[in-house]
């Protein structure tokens, strides 16, 4: 077990640690390596309020992830990111690569949500919704069903080779690989129609790249959830590093209450703690045994803590058995732990400016995203001036400019769009004033604009293209310029 790690939080409640540790010359050669061999963690199973929440999130996120690719919308998959054709289908919407702004908006909203939830209650994302946690939870559940709980697993790993051990290990890995491969398959199902992919799989006709990505993503799931587990959070995850920067002293974090718990010590259930001059902590070390990152929460806030609250659940169970009040380990704030305020004040502190600003920003952004998606034009046009001729004289002595218009139909019906232009006196469309574009198709059309010769001064004149469908529902205006030569 690791010796206590002093942190500034700990100093709040334990002023004794403030003592300066003198610098002593390094004692050779015994010491610790800069690299640490991985110690395998055997988390004990937990039940309780937060465990139920965690399972609720596991089920919710996985119903969503595994279920979505099988949902149909009319003739096609409801959610499909067709990278080859560069069309992204989201229920009734057909998105083009030009709609990247929505992904940007989604990412900004996700970041703001992370800021908000972290400021309010710490690493909720890490502990409950992060895929790393969720898949580790699923894999741990399988491990527990096959090999048993913590003590059984410890015993099994320590036991010499036997048939029972072989069978259990093989069975576990087969189940793990099964879940991992199904996860890989589901992931690919977001990019290749899942039903077709499944038929191809049954007929062993899956394409090379599909096989590669199923195996790649499956292997990543197997390795991350089966073996790396907390190592991902501790050494690889960038979120983990900057989430702690969003904490403040009013953030609800999983904390041990040392004022109530210390001095810790074992005692009989009948014993009077006060008489033994003991705190509420019975030093059962269950909080350490259930911790998926293998830390001791009683040492204060540590960067390894992913806020899963398993220790809260298990400690509450022990407190119930002992007949003590719950909450020796609980979600509380640093200010509350320092004795600054009571329960109702903690709740009021949730509505501090920082949280209100995050909430407002997030709300405004979500509304803006929603509004822009609802009001989105199912038509896009890019105007590119012809790269050969700046302008020319056409038959009849009219001055002509040529443009190429990329007309993108973002509906799933064929459309006829009318092309008009305005901005100069006598400006007319000399080419076909209508263009037919197939469903979810994008077409380049050459458009010729003319003005009577001499009707405008030499130079560049701003003009505007107006493109619209027959119903008048979709109409787009795109700016360009008309060049009149000297």
């Amino acid at each position, binding site marked *: 077990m690791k010796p206590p790690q002093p942190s500034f939080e700990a100093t709040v409640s334990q002023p004794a640690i403030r003592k300066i540790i003198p610098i002593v010359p390094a004692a050779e050669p015994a010491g610790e390596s800069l690299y640490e061999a991985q110690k395998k963690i055997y988390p004990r199973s937990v039940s309780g309020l937060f465990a139920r929440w965690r399972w609720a999130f596991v089920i919710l996120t996985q119903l969503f992830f595994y279920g979505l690719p099988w949902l149909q919308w009319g003739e096609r998959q409801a959610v499909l990111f067709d990278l080859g054709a560069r069309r992204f289908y989201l229920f009734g919407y057909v998105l083009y690569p030009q709609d990247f702004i929505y992904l940007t908006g989604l990412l900004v909203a996700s970041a703001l949500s992370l800021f908000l939830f972290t400021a309010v209650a710490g690493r909720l994302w890490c502990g409950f919704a992060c895929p790393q946690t969720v898949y580790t939870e699923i894999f741990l559940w399988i491990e527990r069903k096959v090999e048993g709980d913590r003590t059984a697993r410890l015993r099994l790993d320590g036991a010499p080779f036997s048939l029972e051990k072989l069978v259990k290990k093989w069975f576990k890995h087969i189940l793990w690989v099964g879940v991992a491969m199904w996860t890989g398959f589901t992931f690919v199902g977001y990019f290749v129609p899942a039903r077709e992919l499944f038929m191809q799989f049954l007929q062993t006709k899956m394409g090379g790249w599909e096989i590669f990505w199923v195996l790649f993503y499956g292997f990543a799931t197997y390795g991350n959830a089966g073996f790396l587990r907390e190592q991902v959070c501790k050494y690889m995850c960038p979120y983990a590093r900057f989430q702690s920067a969003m904490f403040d002293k009013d953030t609800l974090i999983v904390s041990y209450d040392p004022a109530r718990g210390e001095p810790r010590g074992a005692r009989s259930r009948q014993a009077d703690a006060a008489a033994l001059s003991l705190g509420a902590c019975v030093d059962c070390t269950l909080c350490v045994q259930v911790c998926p990152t293998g830390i001791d929460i009683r040492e204060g806030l540590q960067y390894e803590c992913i806020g899963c609250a398993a220790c809260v659940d298990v400690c509450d169970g022990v407190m119930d058995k002992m007949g003590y009040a719950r909450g020796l380990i609980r979600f509380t704030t640093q200010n509350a732990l320092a004795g600054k305020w009571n329960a109702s004040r903690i709740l009021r502190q949730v509505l501090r400016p920082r949280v209100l600003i995050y909430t407002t920003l997030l709300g405004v952004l979500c509304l803006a995203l929603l509004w822009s998606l609802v009001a989105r034009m199912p038509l896009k046009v890019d105007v590119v001036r012809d*790269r050969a001729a700046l302008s020319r004289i*056409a038959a009849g002595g009219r001055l002509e400019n040529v443009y190429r218009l990329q007309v993108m139909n973002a509906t799933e019906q064929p459309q006829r769009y009318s092309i008009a232009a305005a901005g100069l006196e006598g400006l007319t469309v000399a080419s076909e004033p209508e263009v037919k574009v197939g469903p979810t198709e994008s077409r380049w059309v050459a458009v010729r604009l003319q003005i009577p010769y001499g009707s405008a001064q030499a130079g560049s004149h701003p003009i505007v293209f107006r493109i619209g469908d027959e119903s008048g529902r979709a109409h787009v205006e795109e700016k360009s310029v008309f060049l009149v030569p000297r």
Partner: protein
Amino acid sequence: MSDFTDNFWSWYVAALTLVSIAGALVLLWVTARKKIPERSDNTTGHVWDEDLRESNNPMPRWWMWLFVLTVIYSLLYLVAYPGLGTYPGEMGWTTRGEYDAAMVSADKELTPLYAGFTAKSAEVLAGDANAMAVGERLFMNNCAQCHGSDARGSKGFPNLADTDWLHGGSTEKIKETLTLGRKGQMPPMAAAVGSPEDVKNVAQYVLSLSGGPHDSVRAQLGKFKFNACAACHGIDGKGNTAMGAPNLADDIWLHGWGEQAIVDIVNKGKTNEMPAQAGKLTEAQIHVLTAYIWGLSNKAAAAKL
């Protein structure tokens, strides 16, 4: 690039690369061996600003092995691929080879497609939407630079979407133009026509041929001098596609319209060139382009009917 007259820079780059890799290995070896004193409070013992202590949070050992793997990978890579100065690598990889391989694989994919196209005559092919989509892309990449993205050309670059052809608009002629290119030459004719006044008169006559606004008295005087031009453009000025002489009796003016433009050409002559595409495009591509361009011209003809 032959700017390196000796091998110095090659050796310099190679040495720098290898020394850096060796440096990374040494760093790994030193840090793996280094021990820091064990402390009960799990800090390194450093204290700053009264109470700031550095915690001892060791890296996982597997992470160090990943570093070692990257070093091994980099060495294998440098043996296999060009990366050490001018050393070409054991695999013989070059960007040129990559390009050639890509071309071969593209050809393999495209050959059956083009075989389907070349099996049809250009006139029939013009009705094939697939072939025309390919033709449009070929046109955009190879022809639009001069003839415009709508193929209607501009001053000096002929309009390909009308029915007026300098050398004839049959599919055979279009293919010939694409394959071999064309050189249009009009010699300076001022000496043959006569005085500058005569040249102006001829210009007025030429304008009258197409029914444009002109001075009819001068045009009458110019008509006699036009004999010098008739050898190529014909006595009626309708041109001659066999030699690429433009029709002067229509309203299409490749090099500009009006007296001054005509006077300039008579005085100075004109050379215009369409480059041959034979070396750039394959025969099959030229066939598809021929069909595309023929289609443009004949669509316009059909629209006029």
